[in-house]
């Protein structure tokens, strides 16, 4: 009798396990894959929701429609037909999200959100508040990519038209989180919130920009012999991620170009290898390319008494040419020259972020904190003025 009673209790549990409170039909759900947040004209913010359109995705480009439809499709070849964009001006994110249900028959779901783009026009509080709010959303993963648009976040998202990829959601994921894009920092939502809330609010975010606008960026490079991609042009008008926006004390304080972002990625070892190009010593018009393998993240050693920060890192360098270029007597000489140029470029980058941008984006303070026993001792140390006056000594070893 007792066993039957227990068995009955377990059977009673089965209906509760069916998840009747949470039923979610996939064909009744609209999945947001990207979110753009701009400054609103009439309200505080303008939200651009980009929804995945699975039916267009499954139909692909092989549409079986009429010729008229075909010509229409051809006319809109630059438009991404696998997504649907929706712009809502609202004082708050949740009001905007609720408003989507005013005209969408499907339930909005954010569990497939891959990219969040903020406009550079939004005030500092808006970026921080939205990041924290979105991180705490149950449906949003902490690994969601995050970026800053130079002009309009909505415009960036609407212009995204994935190359060689029919699934926009997958494109965002590959592009932002697993790409070999050396010219933009790979930042995720939780990284940014951690930086804002726990690391003195100094951080970086990749810049989302239209390909043709890249040329408007000023170059950060001042080292002769170092070749940057700055003057290079992308023929496509599609949206790209290049360069990095600098946040100081939670505020957007400036931007750096894609080349500086590459140096940032090298120092952090966010990229394992990349190609660097220098001008030949004997004939400056000749370019010499090398494959740089980053063996470990940079190590920082702070000398408080001498007000200096020593930066050391190991690389593997491989010349991407068939024979020794003219003007060099040996490969050792070639590598020594390249090492000198790279050291200067890193030195220049470090001076730029500490003196000009005044932001500890490499989180060097975290390395010095090791020497302090308590937070009280650390807080009594004036890190900001030390960092801004510190002399950087760069030691790189080529293995």
């Amino acid at each position: 009798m007792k066993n039957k009673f227990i068995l009955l209790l377990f059977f009673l549990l089965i209906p509760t396990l069916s998840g009747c409170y949470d039923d979610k039909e996939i064909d009744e759900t609209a999945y947001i894959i990207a979110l753009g947040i701009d400054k609103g004209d009439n309200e505080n913010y303008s939200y651009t929701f980009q929804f995945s359109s699975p039916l267009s995705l499954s139909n692909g480009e092989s549409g079986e429609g009429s010729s008229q439809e075909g010509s229409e499709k051809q006319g809109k070849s630059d438009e991404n037909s696998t997504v649907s964009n929706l712009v809502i001006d609202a004082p708050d994110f949740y009001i905007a999200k609720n408003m989507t249900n005013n005209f969408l028959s499907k339930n909005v779901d954010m569990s497939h959100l891959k990219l969040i783009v903020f406009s550079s026009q939004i005030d500092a509080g808006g970026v921080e508040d939205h990041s924290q709010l979105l991180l705490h959303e149950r449906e949003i993963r902490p690994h969601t990519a995050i970026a800053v648009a130079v002009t309009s976040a909505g415009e960036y998202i609407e212009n995204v038209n994935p190359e060689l990829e029919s699934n926009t959601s997958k494109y965002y994921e590959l592009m932002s989180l697993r790409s070999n894009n050396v010219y933009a920092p790979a930042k995720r939502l939780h990284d940014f919130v951690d930086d804002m809330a726990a690391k003195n609010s100094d951080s970086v975010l990749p810049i989302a920009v239209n390909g043709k606008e890249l040329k408007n960026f000023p170059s950060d490079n001042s080292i002769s012999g170092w070749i940057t991609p700055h003057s290079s042009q992308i023929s496509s008008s599609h949206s790209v991620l290049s360069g990095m926006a600098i946040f100081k004390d939670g505020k957007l304080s400036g931007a750096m170009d894609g080349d500086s972002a590459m140096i940032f990625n090298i120092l952090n070892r966010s990229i394992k290898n990349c190609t660097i190009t220098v001008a030949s010593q004997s004939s400056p018009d000749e370019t010499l390319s090398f494959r740089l393998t980053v063996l470990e993240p940079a190590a920082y050693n702070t000398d408080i008494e001498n007000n200096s920060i020593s930066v050391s890192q190991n690389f593997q360098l491989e010349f991407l040419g068939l024979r020794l270029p003219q003007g060099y007597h040996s490969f050792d000489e070639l590598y020594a020259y390249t090492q000198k140029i790279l050291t200067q470029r890193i030195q220049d980058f470090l001076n730029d972020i500490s003196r000009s941008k005044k932001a500890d984006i490499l989180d060097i303070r975290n390395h010095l904190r090791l020497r302090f026993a308590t937070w009280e001792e650390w807080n009594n140390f004036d890190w900001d003025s030390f960092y801004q006056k510190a002399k950087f000594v760069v030691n790189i070893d080529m293995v």
Partner: protein
Amino acid sequence: MSMPRSNCRTSEIFSIVFILLATKLFTNQSLLFAGISGTGAPLSAICSGLVALLVIYISTRRFYLNPDGRNIISLTEKHFGVFGKYLISIILIVYLALSSSYILNEFSHLAKLVAFPTAPLWFAAVFFVVAAFAGASAKEDGILRISKFIAPFLLTTILVLLISVLCQSDFLNLFPILGTGATNTIGKGLSGVTFYSDIVLVFLINPFSTSPKTTKNAIFTASTIAIIINILAILTFTAKIPYPLSQDGDFPMYLLLKEVYYGRFFQRIDAIFLLASSFCGMFSLSVNFCLIAKILAQSFDITHRQATLFPISATIFLLSMGYLPISQTTVSNSLFPMTFVILGIILLIYPLTRKGVEPSHEK
């Protein structure tokens, strides 16, 4: 008063002790260390763990050498008479009820957060109460048997979760090593010993086996593993979520779970986490319900189990959901001093039980 022996295996003793000590890892109690010590949380966790291990060592060394298989109630009765028996029984029942209410509340919130976002809280709570009721109906022997299946699953899930996150953690977040100060980290941080308070429940299920020495070793080994896992979890949490963010989080294990990233196919390990945490919560509740029924039977001769379990379940459900005039803050605040009272009683009885030990039984 001598109690009948159970034919309980060492692996079952090991499992139940491990689950009882690892349960609180899923609750917000593990935030205690970050709140008090900041980046010194792992150091506080190590100090608390060592103190807890010392108490467990002393307690098990004495109690499980009892040749006649007495539990804490019968030992108190032996040394302090009927009054002592009633007093310790009431203290234990109140502790178990408050602990159950705390566990039910925390696990219901966690289950709602992970799996039932649109469901009301009572829905998740009913789920746990019904399961605990059914589990407790199976008596302690049944519970001990089930523990053997849950413990390896729980241990594997926690280890996979922690190692996955630990690989991507920044260990520089652990500095300054003394966090908010030595006084907080080593002094106030010792209050973290309450994290292991449920070990007292072990002294109610007796005698564990016919071999006291094996039992003693099983309890001590399980406690050591559980304490190491707890320290590892707090270390991972402090390394992954930088201070001061670490002190404001909700459900640290859930926050760590969200950090696990194995690519597109293995993004959602929520389901495994939900299973592990639900098993853990249901099991702990079942043990608590079962022990309340056992105390009522041993001390007050209320022997009808089903008739006892129903009002117990209902009361704890109402207490946990705030339908009774005792807030959850009062419940969690009361658990803290009560743990010390019970540990004090155990350590008080310890010197008195010395006389009753016959070394020959240890062989």
